[in-house]
């Protein structure tokens, strides 16, 4: 037992190399086998990287403690099994030095965990760096709204950001508590009524990153997903241009043209905003101005294709339990027209 207290402090050289590889190995065995799109162990931003680094440090200490203490336990139960004819064991009541030792040892280890922890806390308060891209995030039951105040863009469930540029999120909720979580880019931050919370990160690689709401928020909490599209600067600029250009207007006589008409006189306008339809100004549901350009709909749940869009508009709650968009009584042709119109709004 006495060794266990001392060994903890020695860190032989081989160990320090292991220090990086062992956690990668253990945690990554399964991680290598598949492609884990929502993994916290494959950070792709400065912020996520800092959290990952801290966790790996703690993991290492924990593993050391685990091996030593479980080891001591194993040794004890193997070595001191009752032997037939064994005498009564020596009646030991305690050992002061030993007990002091194993009070101090964990305390010291904790210092090595606490110091980097507190440093990381102060480094990740979410304070925005100057020049950061500002995005307002609003959680809704059960979808995410993203607003770019400086660019005049409002979109849903798919956050577009440029690579290598700091992004500063200002986060609120429209109803209950949700939690914004895109593991490869950022740790969680709750959105709570009456508060504005902040997160800041700089993505370091281009790609699509999955995320989802991490605070239980009611029936479709499981279906409140999102993606972050990290683009090259030019890719991002192109996206911004598309979002801010004049809304496309369908050729008269086309199905989409009809669709705009149907949309404008259906219940849709009671909940949705759509630039191409002046009467559609409501903000209950997602802004549909460029919905045709999104990869997914309904909180990242379904691919944005004709079939899913059609089913969704006909009967959203059937596809997503509890969805706050009601079942719509639309004639089949109207439905087709709306779908065509929405798909044209890229």
């Amino acid at each position, binding site marked *: 037992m006495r060794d266990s207290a001392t060994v903890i402090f020695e860190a032989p050289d081989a160990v320090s190399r292991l220090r990086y590889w062992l956690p990668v190995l253990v945690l990554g065995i399964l991680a290598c086998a598949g492609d884990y799109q929502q993994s916290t162990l494959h950070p792709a931003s400065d912020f996520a990287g800092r959290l990952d680094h801290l966790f790996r440090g703690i993991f290492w200490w924990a593993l050391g403690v685990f091996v030593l203490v479980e080891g001591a336990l194993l040794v004890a*139960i193997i070595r001191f099994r009752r032997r037939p004819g064994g005498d009564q064991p020596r009646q*030991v009541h305690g*050992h002061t030095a030993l007990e002091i030792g194993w009070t101090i040892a964990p305390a010291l280890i904790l210092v090595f965990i606490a110091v980097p922890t507190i440093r990381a806390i102060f480094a990740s308060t979410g304070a925005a760096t100057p020049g950061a891209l500002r995005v307002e995030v609003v959680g809704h039951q059960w979808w995410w709204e993203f607003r770019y105040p400086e660019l005049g863009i409002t979109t849903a469930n798919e956050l577009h950001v440029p690579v290598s540029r700091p992004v500063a999120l200002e986060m609120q909720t429209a109803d209950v508590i949700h939690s914004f*979580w895109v593991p490869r880019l950022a740790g969680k931050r709750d959105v709570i009524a009456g508060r504005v919370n902040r997160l800041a990160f700089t993505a370091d690689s281009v790609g699509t990153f999955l995320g989802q709401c991490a605070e239980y928020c009611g029936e479709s909490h499981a279906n409140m997903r999102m993606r972050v599209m990290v683009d090259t600067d030019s890719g991002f600029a192109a996206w911004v241009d598309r979002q801010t250009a004049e809304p496309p207007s369908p050729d008269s006589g086309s199905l989409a043209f009809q669709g705009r008409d149907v949309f404008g006189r259906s219940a849709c306008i009671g909940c949705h905003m759509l630039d191409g339809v002046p009467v559609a100004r409501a903000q209950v549901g997602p802004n549909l101005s460029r919905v045709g350009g999104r990869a997914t709909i309904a909180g990242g749940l379904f691919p944005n294709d004709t079939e899913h869009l059609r089913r969704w508009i006909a009967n959203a709650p059937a596809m997503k339990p509890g969805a706050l968009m009601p079942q719509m009584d639309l004639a089949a042709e109207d439905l087709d027209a709306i779908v065509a119109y929405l798909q044209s709004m890229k």
Partner: protein
Amino acid sequence: MSNPPSTGLRSWLTTTDHKRIGTLYFWTAFAFFLIGGLEALIIRAQLAQPDGSLVSADTYNQLFTMHGTTMVFLALMPMTAAFFNWIVPLQIGARDVVFPRLNAFSYWVFLLGGLFMNASFLIGAAPDGGWFGYVNLTGPQYSPGLNIDFWVLGLQILGVASLAAGFNFIVTILNLRAPGLTMMRLPVFSWMTLVTQFLVITAFPVITVALVFLLFDRTFGTNFYVPAAGGDPVLWQHLFWIFGHPEVYILILPAMGIVSEVLPTFSRKPLFGYTVVVYSGVLIGFMGWGVWSHHMFSVGLGPIADSFFAAATMLIAIPTGVKIFNWIATLWGGQIRFTTAMKFAVGFIAMFIIGGLSGVSHASPPSDLQQTDTYYVVAHFHYVLFGGTVLGLFAGMYYWIPKMTGRLLSERLGSWHFWLTFIGMNLTFFPMHFIGLLGMPRRIYTYAPELGLGTMNLVSTIGAFVIGLGTLALVINVLWSRRHGEPAGPDPWGGATLEWSIPSPPPPHNFDVIPTVTSRLPRWTTEHPAAPSAPGSAVHVPPGSWWPLVAAAGLPIMASAVVTKLLALVFLGAAVLVFGIYRWAYEPFEV
């Protein structure tokens, strides 16, 4: 001196004998454990593969809420209460608890509260807000149904039961100790019971208040948690966790007490560092009060608060570690007998360490930002709750059931039970660490195949069913041994404490003569204390009483008013309660 009836329904309804009340707690908690376990199995079946469709989203949400609530409040806490009831008076050499009728009252309130909450299943509106019921989701606007009302009122009733039991056990342990049984000779299980009950009486009032606010918001239209009126949902989180964190120590300390009894007995060595183990238990309880916000690191409380709570949380690892080391040192140099009880006790240490270490990784807020609300947390708390509390309670069952029933449990079945449970729990909960770190949030009824977590979830589900088999072995064992178990005799294990000095099962009055204690391990140092030949005062067994049951019935009646919207029930319930209390207070009842 009329002895209470000893058989028949009436004898159970009116009993004030701590042993019978303990038995009632035992079976009730056991049944709720099976129900909570069944809920867990359905949860796991649903999650066995991505896009599962066994149950609907709504049903799933009810299942995990009721699973958590049931396990915490209706299974584990009452199971610890079963042991407090059965064992504490025996360990301290008392003939009963200090307030036997209050004790009966606690049990009936607990039973009725549990039934009340589960009655919600009958109308398909079981609570669905999660076991910590975060507002404003659980407020009237977002949860208009009765689901949350059942939860609020059920917990409120259960709180009464816990508080009443708390006062009772504190005074029992402090005041009814046998002559010579000083606090520093008190068995560790009784010590941990004492600490636990202090946590109960201080933590439960806080959740009572939080729940009253919620009740008022839901029923009377107040705005405590309504943001539009300035109310702050974060206040609920603080109040809940000010209660909630001590609550998790309320769940673990009794198990730590049990293990501290089992290890010495089966190593045939005194507990190493008794004083330190006791004091660290007290310290854990005390420090448990200053860490609540570690459940709220993603709220954004600011760096100063996060740092404070992180540091305070980490400190708890120290006294906990001290206990672990002292337990290992108790084994060291012993003559270890691997009875089933001992296997579970050692399993407890091994598993609790894992849960504690993941707890430390939560304690670091930045690291927790990636872990909170994922399956990594689910892994953490099942290692401490199942690997800790449940294994500890199982150890207690194999250790003390022979005392309660007079018959040993089967060691063969026990061995099956242990290994199935041990392997099953690691299969179930170990993969959850990865599942969480690889990106699966908790409380989701379905997950996307793209996450790539199907296989690990399947393993976890299989593990849960293995635990199920293990639990079946326990059920069979407990039922079978009641008839067919080998007679235990007063002291089947060679235990050191007082409960082993009397017959199994003990006579209604426990001790013919209250023993005089001269050491911490009375039966190891002096064996049978020379029994004074002349019995002390005439042994008197208190009669049963109906009034605890009657008074207890008033509470669910009052609670029903909210779910039935019949105001009259409030008055009826209150009348029943007051009537019960008056009859109780003026009933001739000698202890």
